[in-house]
Every structure is written in C-alpha cells, then in structure tokens.
C-alpha cells in the first residue's frame, strides 16, 4: 500500500528529515510505500491533523502548540524552564519519560490517534531589537507568538507584550518594527532569514520546540502485530537519526548566521539572569492548570517526576 504522511515543515527541516528516515525504514522493511507531503501541500497544520483523524492520511506530524486547541494538555511544552537545558538530558527525557510515553499516548488515543513519537526539534531562541537580559528589558516589547493562550501567558510573565501574528507576516513586521521580537529554534531563524531583521539573538534556555508524530488509530490497530512492530521500529529509527541530525545543528546554524551578518549579537543568559526569568514560571504553570484542570495537574506532576529521574 501507499501510506500517506504529512508534516508541517519545508524540505530539509527537522520534521522532513524525520519523515524521510521513517519512509526509508518502512520501504526497506516492508512492501509499503510512504508518500510524504510537506507544509502547505494538503493545507495547514489543523487541516492535516483532521485529515489524519478522518483516515485520509495514515501518519501526521504536528507540534503540540497547534494540538493545543484539540488536546489542551499538549501545551505543557510552553511552560518555561520546565524542560532541562542540556541536549543529552533532553534526549534521555524523551526516551524515558512516562509522561511522554504513557500519559500522552492516552491523551492522543482519546482523539483517535496513535502517538508514535515525541521528539525535540531545537532549543527556543528569542530574537529582539536589542539584547535583553532581564524581564524588565522586555517591557513594552511586542513579541510575536502563535495564537496560543499559554505561550502568550509565558511572554506576559516575562514582561513582554505577546502579539499573535500569522507566520507569513512575521518577517515584514519585524522589518517595519511593528513587532520587536519573536521566538523560534535557531535553524528556523537561519533558514527564514529572521536574523536579518531581528539581529539580537537571546538564548534564554526557557524551552525546547517539541513535536509529535502519530498515526490514525483505526489504521494502526488494523495492522498485523508484525507490521505494528515494524512501524514502531521505523519511528524509533527515525527518532535516533533525527537526534543525530539536530545534534550540532544549532551550532552550525549559528555559525552560518554569524558569517552572514555583522549586526548579529549573541546573548547567553547567565545563571543569575536565568533565575530572574525562572521566578516568573509559576504564573504560567497556574494558567496551565486553569486551562486543563486535574488532568493537566497530574501530567505536570508526572513530568516533574520524570525530570527528576533523568537529572
């Protein structure tokens, strides 16, 4: 059969790497083919998710930021300073966490989705019109966010003014100073040229851009046990290959940026500076609990327990 797989990014981006590694494994180890659709080919993020729920697509990759309107608990990844900052610890967390590998699996199953893998794409980096090291430095700055209440609450807690804007308007709005900053993994800041119009990179270490790959549950359950195992192996294979791909990707992207522009400044917050931002995190946790109730509280507790286990 031809299995259809859609993700949210462009050619060569992390989700695309994952998808093609998955395809490679499936096609080598079974009679099936995988057809990958990139961003926009079958609609926006919400569209491909619905198409997977409807069974038109067999696999989809969607970031929890978008899933938030369907599974509010998925917004947990927007709580700042919840995740470890060190790459190896993050990878270990994704491998071993019960929250990720059990609790989330159930949440997705309620929506008719078989969660196959959650994985990090990169550390979030803020860019702004000047180097910022304190929450008061963010005062009055309009920072572009996705239309997501929890993310918005994070930037409010940081002292900034969160401003929702469609992705297509971000570059232009930074250029005209309609907004003063945005956040993204470094490789997007590089590939989207955002550093050209927002040259001050701030490594706040507040979170990782996380994403999730899943299958339509009815489709998955109809597969034979062997094939299910093969799909899980393919997800695992793609995960390992992708982790290898993103290890060092951030440094490479930063080098490219520094080479391309002389205006770029790099600010890495010191531990004491981070502490000032960290103090604001409980406000966001509260918002998260308000939005998700007991189920969110339980997930958050599990998350923290899992983190203690790996750190």
């Amino acid at each position, binding site marked *: 059969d031809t299995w259809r797989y859609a993700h949210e990014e462009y050619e060569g981006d992390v989700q695309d790497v994952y998808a093609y590694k998955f395809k490679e494994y499936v096609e080598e180890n079974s009679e099936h083919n995988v057809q990958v659709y990139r961003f926009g080919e079958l609609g926006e993020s*919400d569209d491909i998710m*619905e198409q997977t729920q409807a069974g038109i697509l067999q696999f989809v990759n969607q970031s929890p930021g978008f899933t938030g309107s369907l599974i509010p608990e998925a917004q947990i990844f927007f709580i700042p300073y919840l995740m470890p900052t060190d790459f190896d610890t993050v990878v270990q967390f994704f491998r071993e966490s019960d929250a990720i590998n059990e609790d989330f699996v159930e949440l997705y199953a309620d929506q008719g989705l078989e969660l196959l893998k959650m994985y990090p794409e990169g550390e979030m980096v803020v860019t702004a019109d000047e180097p910022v090291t304190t929450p008061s430095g963010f005062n*009055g700055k309009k920072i572009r966010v996705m*239309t997501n*209440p929890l993310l918005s609450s994070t930037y409010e807690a940081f002292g900034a003014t969160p401003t*929702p804007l*469609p992705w297509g308007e971000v570059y232009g709005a930074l250029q005209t100073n309609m907004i003063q900053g945005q956040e993204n993994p470094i490789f997007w800041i590089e590939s989207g040229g955002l550093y050209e119009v927002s040259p001050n990179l701030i490594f706040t270490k507040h979170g990782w851009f996380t994403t999730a790959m899943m299958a339509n549950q009815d489709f998955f359950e109809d597969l034979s046990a062997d094939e299910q195992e093969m799909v899980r192996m393919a997800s695992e294979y793609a995960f390992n290959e992708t982790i290898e791909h993103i290890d060092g990707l951030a440094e490479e992207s930063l080098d490219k940026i520094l080479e391309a522009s002389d205006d770029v400044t790099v600010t890495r917050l010191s531990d004491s500076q981070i502490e000032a931002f960290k103090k604001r995190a409980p406000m966001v946790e509260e918002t998260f609990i308000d939005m998700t109730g007991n189920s969110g509280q339980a997930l958050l507790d599990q998350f923290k327990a899992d983190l203690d286990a790996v750190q």
Partner: protein
Amino acid sequence: MSEDDTQHFTSHLPGFLGTIDEWISKLESFILALGVLLMAVNTCVNVIARFGFGKGLFFSGEINRILIIMITFAGIGYAARHGRHIRMSAIYDAIPFTGRKILMICIALFTSAVMFFLCYFAMVYIISVFERGRVLPALQIPIWTIYVWVPIGFFVTGVQYLLTAIKNITASDVYLSTQVLDGYSDSEREV
C-alpha cells in the same frame, strides 16, 4: 461603482413562503453589511489598540475569521438570488433564445443539485468537527459553531437555483435568477 440593483427583492413564492423568502433576503443583506462593517471596525480597533496603547487584541484575527465565513456563506445565497455569481457567458450569449432557455434550466438545476450535495457534506463535516471538540485558540469557543453558516448558505443557494429553474420553466423569458432577466441591459453588473 454602478447604482445598486439589489435594493428591492420581491419574492415570487406564494403567500407565507414568499414572506419567509423576503425575510431571508433581508437577513442576508443585513449580515453582509454588518459583517463587512464589523470587519473594518475590528481591524481598525486592533491597529489602534496595538499602536496607540501598545497591546493589540489577542482575538482580533479569530473574529475576522468568523466574519469571513459569515459573509461568504450569507453572500452566496444572496448572489444567487440576484444572479451575480461569476460566470462566463460568451458562448451562452451567442445561443438563440430557445437554446438559452433550455441551457439556463440545465445550469440552474445542476447548480442547485451541487449546492444541496455540498450542504449535506458540510453537515457531515461539522458533525465530525463537533465530535473532535476543537476550539478556537484565543476565544476558546468550539470551532463547529463558526461553521454553521456553511450548510445554511449552500442550502439557501440550492433553493435559489431550484427556483430559478422553475421560473425559467414557467415564465416566457430567460431568467438568470428569480429576479434578474437575462441580457446586459437589465442586469447591470456591480463590480
């Protein structure tokens, strides 16, 4: 632009049905005008709030999304009523009267069928969105509620084309809609 030719709508349906039809027409035009004006106000208020007071409206984009759907699906019925859907009539216009009449009946019947077909699938779609429970991120209202215009719009449009077919069968002239006679002289197109 040219003078408005959609000012008065008199239904050709008999009695009670005709009254309902006229009310629907009034409602459609009200929704169209209101939707467009609200969109302008919402967007301007957002600009002023963001630039003047430093903080835009978080839900402004979602309001416009709701309004676009409302305008589009209130408008397709209204456009059908007044024979204003974009069509290419070069060959059609060159056909003699009887051929035109037959062709118009076919066009109206087929279009009507397509609209009812889409109305059905719009309902199927809304039910699935309802079951999945997705909400608008900023306003936190269920998304299916903003889609209810969709099947209604297709249904009203389907009815209008059906009535157009009936009108063409019963009347002696060729009609683009229940209101509008074919021929450029009496159907000045607004742009």
